[in-house]
């Protein structure tokens, strides 16, 4: 079943087409990788799916509904979560508070509730804290709940970012370079988490430069170059595809 259908999206910055008439299907339950040389338009595509950029042209269907041009928080609520390329966290908050902010939508307390500290809001806070601790357990950060997120190491930040996206209970998870800048053993840890995510039935679409990591986790790969799709298929077909080799290594 096609969960996410990207239908001919184009994004122009002035005269430059960062993404040019790009189409792609993401099937429910798969791990789909989006690769390509620097500047190929991968992150731009991500930003269009997640609502941070409005496509100049084209449509994006999620569960049959066109989500192109909707606001990021609306798209997030529909079930598309994302992580960011650079480790983006709420640096001044503790790890637990980061997770609680991620669980915010799960709370039924309204503003007045929270300000006047009603019993309902106390109960909701307790429930959210419990939920956050469980999620921290999943990503292996429960020992660090009181530490400010900004002081975490690189891998731990990546894990927290992933955990926060998981708190949204998304149907599709967009991972933007989840293992960039990590050592091989750190990459292993992160890939293990991504595989766990897939086992929970969450569809993953990821952008990544580390080909070894992509090969080990992706079910299908789409290759972008200069904003256009040049290949799509199983990992083994892709590494032998002459067009792909040309794009990466030149003639």
């Amino acid at each position, binding site marked *: 079943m096609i969960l996410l259908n990207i239908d001919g999206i184009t994004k122009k910055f002035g005269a430059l087409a960062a993404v040019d008439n790009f189409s792609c299907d993401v099937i429910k339950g798969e791990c789909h990788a989006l690769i390509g040389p620097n500047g190929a338009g991968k992150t731009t595509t991500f930003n269009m799916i997640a609502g941070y950029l409005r496509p100049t042209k084209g449509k994006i269907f999620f569960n049959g509904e066109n989500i192109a041009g909707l606001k*990021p928080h609306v798209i997030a609520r529909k079930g598309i979560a994302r992580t960011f390329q650079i480790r983006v966290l709420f640096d001044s908050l503790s*790890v637990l508070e980061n997770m609680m902010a991620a669980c915010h939508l799960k709370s039924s307390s309204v503003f007045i509730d929270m*300000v006047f500290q009603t019993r309902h809001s106390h109960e909701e806070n307790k429930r959210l804290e419990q939920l956050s601790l469980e999620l921290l357990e999943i990503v292996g950060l429960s020992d660090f709940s009181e530490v400010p997120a900004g002081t975490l190491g690189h891998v731990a930040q990546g894990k927290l970012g992933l955990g926060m996206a998981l708190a949204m209970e998304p149907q599709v998870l967009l991972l933007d370079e989840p293992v960039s800048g990590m050592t091989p053993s750190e990459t292993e840890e992160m890939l293990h988490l991504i595989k766990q995510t897939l086992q929970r039935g969450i569809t993953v679409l990821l952008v990544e430069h580390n080909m070894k990591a992509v090969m080990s986790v992706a079910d299908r790969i789409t290759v972008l170059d200069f904003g256009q799709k040049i290949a799509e298929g199983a990992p083994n077909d892709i590494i032998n595809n002459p067009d792909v080799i040309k794009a990466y290594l030149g003639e």
Partner: protein
Amino acid sequence: MMKKMTNFTQQEKKMQMQTIKGKERPRITPKRVVLTLLIFALMLLLPKIISNEYWLHVIIGTGIVSITVIGLRILMQTGPVSFAQAGFMAVGGYTSALLVMKLGISFWISLFFAGIVAACVGCLLGWPALRLKADYFFLVSFCMGEVIRLFFNFVGVDLFGGPTGLASIPPPDPVLGIEIISKTSFFYLVFLFVCLAMLLSHSIDRSRIATIFSAIKDRDDLAASLGINVIKYKVLAFGISCFLAGISGALYAHYYTCISPTCFTVTQSVNTLAYTVVGGIGSFLGPLLGTAFLRVVGELVRTFGDYEVMVAGVALILVVKGLPKGIISIPSYFRGSRNLNGK
């Protein structure tokens, strides 16, 4: 899988947790309750201690402005900085004064309306403007404040009195048979509203709203990706800060008994911002400390005449340079636990 994480020894981890903690929510401890009650008692006795009418007048002025400052801090918790707060004070002041003078409504009701009208104007203007990045919102808010001031200056001269403004605004109606005309009674009135504003600010700090506010301030893109409606919360914070500015403006109008557009110039907005920054936005007490500190410094250097502004400016620069988190952070320097992420 957990190799990297378990590399820390227990001791190291403990140390890390002790020295650098995330933002702390204010907690209610017995020590704090006692301290609050003491300050409360002191404030209640203040008019008896200070027999000097002039200083009482300064303290009342400080109290009135501090309500606006408390409001501005609530907005700044979400990131944006507003330069328009004097404008919203004007909205509150004119609203309350006109309701009392033209329609004969009781001060206690008009005060509430002053806050509501200011909040509505704030939300209406903030809804589009808060979509801008913080620096641009700052510029737009500067215009907002000026436009509001000029509105009262040029539009509806019959109603708002043009450049001369409104005069002989009646004092608040007597409550429980007590007339609020003397400086002492006004002191208690303002004190009550400062306490209420502080209570609101403190409640927000203790609630999860504060977490959401700091989250939005840190990274609004990440907050949006978590389904948080960033604009809604920013408009909410701006609305609250305008509500408080409106209340403060109404108290201003009824205390000084006359208002004109010149009372609400950019200088007033600059001062409001300076009080907030100097006090520090890290704590709900910051705005009050900042306002009191700069007001008192301002009064003490009043003899310098034209140089008064300069002295205040230098004080501002010194505080911002030396204490980026405001004078509220001084105790933490003595305790030696400087927050490492305070940049």
